[in-house]
């Protein structure tokens, strides 16, 4: 069963705009990870945020984590058409050996 829930399920924006995706989860975690997927195939790791971190940046990506609300957000700034993809959050639950529990994903479309 999947733990995470993401919203929105789909997001369409213009190039240059920012895109924000949200993820909620249910249990205690070691970390939360965001992945990107093109065309339903391999997942590309974007960023990992530990449970004791609140915010992390990587290039145009900014991730926040609020463990009290069990939620995370992924912000992509100055979006490009090449950012069009599905984005998934995945939680690494405590004491479960590192298996990831994925949300259903947000499908992002960036129009040129």
């Amino acid at each position: 069963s999947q733990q995470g829930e993401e919203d929105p399920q789909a997001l369409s924006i213009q190039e240059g705009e920012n895109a924000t995706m949200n993820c909620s989860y249910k249990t205690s975690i070691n970390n939360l990870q965001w992945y990107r997927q093109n065309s339903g195939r391999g997942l590309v790791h974007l960023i990992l945020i530990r449970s004791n971190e609140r915010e992390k940046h990587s290039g145009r990506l900014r991730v926040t984590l609020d463990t009290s609300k069990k939620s995370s957000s992924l912000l992509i700034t100055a979006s490009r058409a090449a950012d069009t993809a599905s984005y998934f959050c995945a939680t690494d639950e405590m004491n479960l050996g590192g298996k990831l529990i994925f949300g259903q994903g947000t499908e992002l479309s960036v129009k040129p």
Partner: protein
Amino acid sequence: GAGVSQTPSNKVTEKGKYVELRCDPISGHTALYWYRQSLGQGPEFLIYFQGTGAADDSGLPNDRFFAVRPEGSVSTLKIQRTERGDSAVYLCASSLESGLADNEQFFGPGTRLTVL
């Protein structure tokens, strides 16, 4: 170095047949994970190995599914008596070691299984 590789990239089989899906993890990675992804869904955990042993197989849907990793490197996911509902993309991932606080998993391109 090379990333995670999976073979075949596509597999079409008939209902009732047996299939094997192979995963080659990143060299030196001791943890290996199998996930299954249906259309429009996020990946779902199947099983993971730490070394040669299956540390958690709680995600395997039933006893038609089995996976091995005899030498602690390459893994094979085996599906007996395939059913149409088994059609999905099967993803493999590896990481340095399970249980690390920063257990970043690297995914392969997946095997798309279609059961007719």
